[in-house]
């Protein structure tokens, strides 16, 4: 059998292919994005698509499952909040062909706005849940999820975390199994969740979960490792690996692969005769609450806490297995290195123009590359909560400001992908209620932050096929907003950009700015800019540092002069040139 090294995300994609999945949908979000990117490698056998948000992705998968083919929807943890509406009710209907929801959680907030533990969704939404610990299990559990979901008529959840998604380990490859379509038949009593049917399906899903619970007792997805110890560890997912690293073979293990429903009998038999039971889990005390409810004394969260990523070191410390490790100390610190807007990034022009008018503005941000505008030197916004909120929080905030006599205009900021995701519905609220806000779409023609995924505005889809692009400006006009209240500008052009913001500030009521310029890292843009860069005439430069205010990572200030320190990353956007009062900066073509 072929052994390859794969990330957990790649292995889920491989597992989906081996399981005979026919339809897959997702909205990109770290650390889940690579699942669909890798499924697209199998586009001849799996139809795959970037949906506009996690709810529509899930509904596309639900439709395929009820239609009779195996389907998958993948998302990051916060995406599951968006998708939870269809998930809670699809759980009642159960499946025709298998349906798998993949949730990629992000303990430690490596690239997320919270650390929510989506294991709690499984009992709440009534989903069967599997938790893989490494890439091999990602593949095997993906396949098992389809078999179990179909056997017990349950929607299944594969719950991963960043360290499972983005860690690479060895996987043995298998072949694509035939999963012949199950005929679609009209069964409104099963699939149309009106009250009369939903009441009955609630009974059915509880029965089906009980059947899965009985199966879990003898399932090979759960495993007991008896090392003859009087201490037992119950764990799952990546936490099991950390526990193995910390305790080695000095304790017994109950490694749970099926973490909802949990087999009571399995847990009781494991705990019987043990002196101590430790629950090793990252995030919430999910397993611990369950084990305690069975009346089994155990220890976990009071030692480990629920914040941040777990690792072997934390476990060793918490359970007194070692003294603090010896660590070298240099006596000096490395300077911080926060992520920044790239050289040539169109967002820089927007944020600079806004920053020089800051005293007249309160700004609300959103989730995307442009979130980085919150940092120095722009301090571009004060509030950032979730996808789409950048256009709706301003509505309420502007009311609060007005009530307190605050004359500043509230600005909302989000990107093209976020606009399609959920920003448009917020725009409808703002236009319909005549809100006194300025809403800005920073349209860089791609879902950039997660690594350039196609969206409704691109002319290609995930599979590389030509598709109609949906025009954001036409969507804005479709609300009936007066066209004089909509400005489309190039954010790098400070004259245009500044004029648009000034007009918004002078206009009472709703105003919309579309700051449109493609991401500097797009292949077509790189190609178009090849050889172009800025040069600074060192004789003309007076060292006034005006150009440093744009915080471009391609620039530096040395020997009292500004220089282009990294010409390879400079795109020649000329934002710096617009800052210079001494005409020292110019763009050259055909350089390098």
């Amino acid at each position, binding site marked *: 059998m072929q052994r390859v090294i794969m990330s957990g995300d790649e292995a889920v994609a491989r597992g989906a292919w081996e399981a005979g999945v026919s339809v897959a949908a997702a909205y990109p979000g770290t*650390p889940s994005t690579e699942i669909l990117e890798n499924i697209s490698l199998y586009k001849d056998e799996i139809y795959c698509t970037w949906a506009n948000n996690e709810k529509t992705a899930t509904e596309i998968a639900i439709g395929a499952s009820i239609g009779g083919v195996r389907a998958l929807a993948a998302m990051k943890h916060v995406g599951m909040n968006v998708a939870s509406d269809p998930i809670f009710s699809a759980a009642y209907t159960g499946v025709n062909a298998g349906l798998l929801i993949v949730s990629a959680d992000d303990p430690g907030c490596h690239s997320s706005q919270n650390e929510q533990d989506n294991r709690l969704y499984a009992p709440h939404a009534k989903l069967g849940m599997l938790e893989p610990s490494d890439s091999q299990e990602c593949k095997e559990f993906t396949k098992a999820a389809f078999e179990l979901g179909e056997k017990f008529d349950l929607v299944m959840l594969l719950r991963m975390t960043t360290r499972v998604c983005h860690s690479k*380990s060895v996987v043995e490859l298998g072949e694509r199994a035939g999963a012949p379509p199950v005929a679609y038949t009209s069964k409104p009593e099963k699939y149309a969740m009106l009250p009369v049917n939903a009441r009955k399906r609630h009974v059915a899903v509880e029965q089906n979960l009980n059947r899965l619970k009985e199966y879990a007792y003898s399932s090979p997805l759960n495993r007991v490792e008896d090392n003859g110890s009087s201490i037992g560890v119950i764990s799952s997912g990546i936490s099991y690996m950390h526990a193995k690293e910390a305790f080695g073979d000095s304790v017994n293990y109950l490694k749970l692969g099926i973490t909802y429903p949990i087999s009571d009998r399995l847990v009781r038999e494991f705990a019987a005769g043990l002196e101590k039971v430790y629950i090793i889990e990252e995030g919430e005390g999910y397993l611990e609450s369950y084990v305690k409810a069975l009346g089994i004394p155990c220890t976990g969260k009071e030692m480990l806490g629920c914040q941040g990523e777990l690792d072997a070191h934390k476990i060793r410390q918490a359970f007194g297995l070692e003294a603090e490790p010896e660590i070298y100390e240099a006596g000096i610190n490395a*300077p*911080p290195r926060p992520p920044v807007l*790239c050289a040539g990034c169109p967002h820089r022009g927007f944020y600079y123009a806004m920053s020089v008018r800051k005293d007249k503005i309160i700004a609300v941000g959103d989730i995307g590359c442009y979130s980085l505008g919150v940092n120095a030197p722009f301090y571009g916004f004060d509030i950032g909560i979730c996808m789409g909120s950048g256009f709706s929080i301003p509505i309420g905030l502007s009311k609060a400001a007005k009530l307190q006599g605050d004359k500043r205009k509230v600005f909302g900021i989000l990107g093209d992908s976020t606009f399609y995701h959920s920003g448009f519905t917020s725009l409808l609220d703002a236009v319909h209620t005549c809100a006194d806000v300025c809403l800005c779409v920073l349209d860089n023609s791609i879902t950039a932050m997660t690594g350039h995924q196609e969206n409704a505005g691109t002319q290609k889809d995930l599979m590389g096929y030509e598709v109609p692009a949906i025009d954001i400006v036409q969507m804005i006009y479709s609300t009936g907003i007066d066209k004089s209240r909509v400005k489309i500008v190039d954010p790098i052009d400070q004259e245009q950009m500044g004029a648009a913001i000034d007009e918004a500030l002078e206009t009472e009521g709703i105003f919309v700015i579309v700051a449109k310029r493609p991401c500097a890292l797009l292949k077509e843009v790189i190609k178009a800019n090849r050889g172009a860069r800025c040069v600074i005439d060192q004789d003309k430069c007076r060292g006034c540092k005006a150009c440093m205010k744009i915080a471009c990572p391609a*620039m530096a200030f040395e020997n009292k002069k500004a220089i282009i320190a990294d010409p390879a990353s400079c795109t020649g956007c000329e934002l710096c040139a617009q800052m210079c009062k001494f005409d020292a900066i110019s763009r050259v073509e055909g350089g390098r």
Partner: protein
Amino acid sequence: MTKSILMTGVGGQGIILTAKILAEALVGCGYDVKMSEIHGMSQRGGTVNTQLKYGDRVYAPNIGLGEADIILAFEKAEALRALPYLKKGGRIVMDTREIYSMPVLLGQSEYPHDAHRVLNNVTGNVTLVPAGQIAEEMGNIKVQNICLLGALARLLELENIDWEALITRFVPAKLAELNISAFKRGYNQDYAL
């Protein structure tokens, strides 16, 4: 026993690719291998860490404080930042290339130009590989990573690995030859410090 290597540098330096090639080489040697990377926000000029562990059986994919046998640093300040992860007696293999972060460019933070000397004073076990300089001499700064991989490959004393074939598999075809030369320069470099 498992061996732990922490690779650190700045987004865009090709750290993840370097770790990928090494991971493939180690799988080819029959080791159990785990590699953990954090990406997402860090692509935008932030710190990038890739952690690689190999041995008979590897459990956790990540490296804790004081656990790395080797730190391979692609950038000077990042070598300093990674120091708490070094095991006592562990080795730092580093480039002295300096990439200024935004707080340094804005004059809010000092860049630690002397970090390599400080690290050597503290650990007594720093190997300098001028990979950035070599790559620039070769006309393409992007091969810095493969040059560092060459230095690491010699240090790990791995045998029976066809590095040239592996590198060719992972880099663009037209850059394969240049990368292989960079690897050899790294492998054969006489180290300072």
